[in-house]
């Protein structure tokens, strides 16, 4: 077992919030068509408030800290926050569009020992990337910033979110990542807006396109292995949790709201009214979430995909029930294996394939 896996198991057993995602602003200089945030200023935490939150997270055992937004560099105190976080010995990842990272900022990021800078690149073609961000020149500025960061030895990861707008560009972005010497990650999931508005979900790629992506060696490695049907979960998986959200992971909004995860907007408390420890240990919402095991999931517990499904309880929550299935993950499992999930069989929402020859078989219930 790897040391980090061992650490995660220990943190789960002890209830330690090993990872935290802190959005320091929701303001942004881009207006990405698929963004799940609104960008209104609603009273962001002050620098001192954020320093207090960071101290509380460190005291609670958080090691992995993602500083994000919005665009975090829009805050004038962004580097002050990063410096303070590093002085508390967090392992810090910075999520940014990088358009504000010049030479000075790139040098400072390196000096601070930021673990990784994570940047979304939607296309290698400026006309497509810029049309998604709605910021003219954004691909050029982002790419220039990545080169600066790399020149200073900063580790960078590019995420390519797949949408109808940029479908077919992933190979080009992967080539760009290789040329820049950075990690490449593909993400086929569009997240509903935290307000509950699901209209942006229509920007996502089709089931057939998802199937094509998940059957491309360049993106998933060994296709036969990646797409092979796997037997249902063993008892130990059924007794476990389907996700770290609320178990070892916490999300904090710029306004002090605590959720289990950025994609799981279930209110658990606010840091302007309660301490982090009070929320983490005593929030009724978190306590209830932690009581749910895989075997308690009303549909997914008897789904043939449950041993490897990446079921997101946050997406399920936004569909109305975090004990239920998350349809984007059902679609992913179906696209991978050609076998409908239990939820798809029940609702008849899977698009039939020409001839898969595969069915999901289960006993009477």
């Amino acid at each position, binding site marked *: 077992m790897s*040391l*980090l896996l061992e650490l995660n198991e*220990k943190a789960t057993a002890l209830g330690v919030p090993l990872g935290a995602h802190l959005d320091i602003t929701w303001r942004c200089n881009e207006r990405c068509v698929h963004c799940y945030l609104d960008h209104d200023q609603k009273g962001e935490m002050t620098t001192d408030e954020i320093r207090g939150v960071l101290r509380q997270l*460190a005291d609670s055992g958080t*090691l992995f800290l993602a500083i994000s937004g919005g665009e975090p560099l829009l805050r004038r105190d962004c580097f002050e926050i990063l410096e303070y976080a*590093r002085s508390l*010995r967090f392992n810090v990842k910075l999520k940014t569009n990088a358009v504000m990272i010049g030479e000075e900022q790139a040098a400072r990021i390196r000096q601070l020992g*930021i*673990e990784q800078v994570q940047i979304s690149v939607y296309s290698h073609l400026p006309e497509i990337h810029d049309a998604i961000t709605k910021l003219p020149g954004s691909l050029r500025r982002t790419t220039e910033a990545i080169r600066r960061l790399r020149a200073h030895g900063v580790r960078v990861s590019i995420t390519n979110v797949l949408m109808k707008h940029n479908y077919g560009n992933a190979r080009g972005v992967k080539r760009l990542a290789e040329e820049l010497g950075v990690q490449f990650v593909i993400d086929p999931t569009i997240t509903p807006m935290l307000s509950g508005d699901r209209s942006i979900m229509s920007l996502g790629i089709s089931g057939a396109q998802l199937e094509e992506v998940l059957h491309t060696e360049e993106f998933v490695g060994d296709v036969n292995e990646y797409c092979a049907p796997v037997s249902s979960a063993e008892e130990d998986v059924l007794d476990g949790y389907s996700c770290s959200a609320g178990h070892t992971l916490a999300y904090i909004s710029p306004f002090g709201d605590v959720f289990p995860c950025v994609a799981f907007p279930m209110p658990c408390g606010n840091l302007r009214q309660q301490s982090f420890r009070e929320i983490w240990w005593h929030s009724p919402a978190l306590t209830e979430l932690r009581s749910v095991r895989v075997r308690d999931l009303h549909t997914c517990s008897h789904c043939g995909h449950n041993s490897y499904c990446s079921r997101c309880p946050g997406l399920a929550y936004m569909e109305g029930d975090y004990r239920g299935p998350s349809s984007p993950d059902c679609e992913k499992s179906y696209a991978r294996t050609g076998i409908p999930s239990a939820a798809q069989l029940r609702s008849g929402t899977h698009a039939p394939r020409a001839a898969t020859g595969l069915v999901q078989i289960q006993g009477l219930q």
Partner: protein
Amino acid sequence: MADIYISQSAEIAARTVGDETVIISTLDSTVFMLNSVGTAIWSAADGATPLSKIVEERVCPEFEVSPEQALEDAQEFVEKLASHGILQISGAPVSHGASL
């Protein structure tokens, strides 16, 4: 043998979970996991306390080991961490740790 002083490098991320400490080098992302004895030494690495005193006060009473053996093991341990750049060893007290 002359006293040595140890201080934590600034080029790390670290947290103690339970009685163990995980340390990640920001230079190369190498992960180190310290057991309870290692954690006792690491958490006392303030640059001002001699290693012999750390061993005497933090290790020997807690872990029932002879002072000579404990100091020998501790020296080996800190040299190993220092070789990875996550701990600094000095022949004299260090007024403060490395700043970011």
